[in-house]
């Protein structure tokens, strides 16, 4: 297994997209033939992932994050105006295309974008102006100021995981000679629960996988980190990759796997080379590959890079993606621990979970257990962003209060906090005494702060659009429901909603939450539901006080005619 297979469909399509700026019908046929895949599979994959395109993008292809923390669409519009292009329309000379993309995980770096797949951060009006010049003069991205591409860690508070840099091989040496049961007991005794959001016991997950009958098993690290506002795995991948790979290797040893995969979100492709180098160094040091540390245990790790699909963070969709398919969540049961990658028992763990596991086998379960609350052991990395003086990474023992975090981050006049990303919870001031813990407010790590200057309805609208964009479309309630929620909320936000529309939103939201196939649909209505519960007055203030308002807006429908005739005068409006 090559560490980065140039034959993996996602990687082939990425290379093609980079070179030719789109995936043509002919390319689909050729790639299908070359990889011995059905043509329809190549087409389906191309059309599923947001970073692959069926029509040409510009030689400079720019995707502005539309996240409430790392997005700034005013800057996007500035660049559109500067270069005289419209969003989503490639300029006729093929020079430039500008579009939006979901959160790219740079929430501690201000306005950010992807330029030909590379991350630029801390955008300002001035940078946009310079960027316009560079694009016009067709200066290759490699010759742009390197300072634009700098990405720091912004660690504000260190705890158990961030304080130490584990010596490569230390955890593996610590488990040398210990049986699978002994290591498993250590993990279980620590009380470690999954850091990806669901909070499943890691020890139990490994045990279920190990005990599932099979001739082979897999370890998969979930580095998809797609939840808007989350960027803590980025820091671990950047500065603790050795510890992560060590955690994966320990897991492989426990469950009896010989192959691991790191599924890296496409937005983090800029880290790929460094990660591959770390893997190579570990191979050379005997920490990976055949006969790890002379123990007779073979284990290697390959990287698969995604291409713009939040749903691929869902473990079974992620597995489908590694299998070169669209990221459609599988039917559960069976769960990945019994039938995962290529039908084999598979452990899927979050980056932070695996880093913690490496620490636990090195230091023993007490090291971990003594931190946190009785139901939530250890520490949690939080990605704090939004309206505060010090955005960045904060590692706290579980049990910390929201108020404490807000104080540490220098947040003032806080109106609301979105904890756990759009899929999580929206809370107001009355809940700031609550604690971050599985038994209170659980989070995968996203902590977004909104002060009183924010239009919270617009924030809720942003999240609702996010789910509509990211729904995989497999099941009816989420595919259709997320679009209905988006349209319904837009109607309310634009001042056209009535009490009836709120009832409709509630009803649709309840159905989507309860009847969807996977976690995406089950959480997609959360922003609307929490918004209506915690901030009903915001909705109320925007309503028309009449029986009903038609869904159909005649004036808005004339927009196309107006733009075709280049008119916007009063006569052209109703």
């Amino acid at each position, binding site marked *: 297994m090559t560490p980065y297979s140039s034959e993996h469909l996602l990687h082939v399509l990425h290379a093609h997209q980079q070179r030719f700026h789109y995936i043509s019908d002919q390319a689909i046929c050729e790639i299908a033939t070359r990889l011995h895949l059905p043509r329809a599979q190549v087409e389906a994959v191309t059309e599923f992932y*947001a970073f692959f395109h069926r029509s040409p993008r510009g030689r400079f292809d720019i995707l502005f994050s539309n996240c409430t923390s790392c997005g700034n669409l005013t800057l996007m519009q500035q660049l559109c105006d500067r270069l005289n292009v419209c969003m989503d329309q490639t300029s006729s000379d093929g020079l430039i295309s500008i579009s939006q993309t979901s959160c790219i995980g740079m929430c501690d770096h201000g306005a950010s974008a992807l330029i030909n797949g590379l991350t630029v951060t801390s955008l300002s009006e001035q940078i946009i102006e310079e960027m316009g010049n560079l694009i016009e003069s067709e200066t290759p991205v490699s010759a742009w100021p390197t300072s634009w591409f700098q990405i720091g860690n912004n660690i504000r508070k260190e705890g158990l995981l961030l304080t130490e840099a584990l010596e490569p091989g230390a955890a593996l040496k610590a488990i040398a000679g210990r049986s699978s049961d002994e290591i498993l007991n250590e993990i279980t005794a620590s009380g470690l629960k999954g850091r990806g959001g669901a909070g499943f016991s890691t020890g139990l997950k490994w045990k279920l996988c190990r005990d599932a009958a099979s001739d082979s098993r897999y370890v998969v690290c979930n580095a998809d980190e797609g939840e808007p506002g989350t960027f803590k795995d980025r820091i671990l991948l950047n500065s603790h990759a050795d510890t992560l790979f060590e955690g994966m290797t320990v897991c492989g040893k426990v469950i009896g796997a010989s192959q691991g995969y790191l599924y890296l979100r496409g937005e983090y492709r800029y880290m790929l080379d460094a990660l591959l180098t770390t893997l190579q160094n570990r191979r050379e040091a005997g920490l990976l590959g055949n006969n790890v540390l002379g123990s007779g245990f073979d284990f290697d790790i390959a990287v698969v890079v995604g291409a713009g699909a939040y749903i691929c963070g869902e473990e079974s969709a992620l597995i489908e993606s590694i299998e070169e398919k669209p990221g459609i969540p599988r039917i559960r049961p069976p769960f990945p621990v019994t039938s995962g990658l290529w039908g084999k028992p598979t452990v899927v763990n979050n980056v932070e979970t695996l880093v913690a596991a490496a620490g636990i086998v090195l230091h023993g379960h007490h090291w971990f257990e003594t931190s946190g609350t009785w139901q939530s052991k250890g520490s949690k990395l939080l990605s704090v962003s939004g309206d505060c003086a010090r955005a960045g990474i904060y590692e706290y023992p579980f049990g910390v209060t929201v108020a404490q975090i807000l104080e540490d981050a220098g947040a003032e006049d806080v109106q609301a906090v979105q904890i756990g990303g759009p899929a999580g919870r929206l809370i107001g001031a009355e809940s700031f005494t609550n604690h971050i813990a599985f038994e209170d407010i659980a989070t995968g790590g996203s902590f977004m702060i909104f002060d009183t200057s924010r239009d919270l309805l617009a924030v809720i609208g942003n999240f609702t659009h996010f789910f509509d*964009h990211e729904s995989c479309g*497999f*099941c*009816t309630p989420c595919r259709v429901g997320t*679009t209905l929620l988006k349209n319904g909320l837009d109607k309310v936000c634009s001042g056209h909603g009535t009490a009836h529309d709120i009832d409709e939103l509630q009803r649709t939201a309840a159905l989507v939450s*309860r009847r969807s196939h996977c976690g995406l649909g089950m959480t997609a209505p959360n922003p609307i539901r929490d918004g209506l519960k915690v901030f009903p007055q915001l909705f109320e203030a925007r309503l028309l006080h009449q029986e009903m308002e038609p869904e159909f807006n005649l004036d808005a429908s004339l927009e196309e005619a107006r733009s075709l005739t280049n008119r916007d005068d009063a006569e052209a409006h109703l």
Partner: protein
Amino acid sequence: MSDPMKKTIIIDGVEIPFEEGQTIMDAALAADIYIPHLCHKPGLSPHGSCKLCTVDVNGRAVSSCTMPAEAGQEIANNTASLNEARKTITQMLFIEGNHLCPSCEKTGDCTLQAIGYHLGMLDGHFPQFYPRREVDASHGSLVLDRDRCIMCELCVRASRECDGKDVFAISGRGTKRQLVVNSPTGRLVDSDIELDDMAAHICPVGAILIKDHGYEVPIGRRTFDLHSVSETDLDEVILKKTKHHDQEHETAEKEGGVYGV
């Protein structure tokens, strides 16, 4: 009380037996209990996408076509609130496509429509999406009208599992999903589909139609004009290449071999 020795589940208060490996849907159909379903067809691997078969098992929502039956499950199925949820899901399927029933050749034989009748659906409720989707009329004897496709993937599975081919797939994401054809040009005429294939006949709506056989059975005398879907879907399903009602005199029935139930 349920007999602990016998494997049973309880649906709406009625205790029914099940065999190891059966889903709740399998057990229900075997016991002549109708659970509304669209993307499910006994004999094909379950899919779990339409969510019409949603039931509450000990209070938790699950898809009965994919959830294994397990002793002790107490299942709510034919309740007012579940049927209301199913009606809403059916309305969603209607409004996301372009379903102009009066002008559709499948009317009266369409399972989506029949489920609408069964659930007392009187309107689409939600604003129409009016998507733009392509028609593929390239094939000599089949037409693919994507406006009516509900993404149930019955044709995808039938092609793979019954016909031993791979003619269809679903491409795209979200509401932009659409049925695609696995041929070099993406057109039906260049695929290896044949009129006899199960995939050509399994479509529950009017998205895959047989050409040259329009309106031979008058409206009013079609399947769901005469029967409710809750009756027809309880009929023993023999996964044969279902006759198009217009074809009665042309092709003899062909059994689907191992897929027959």
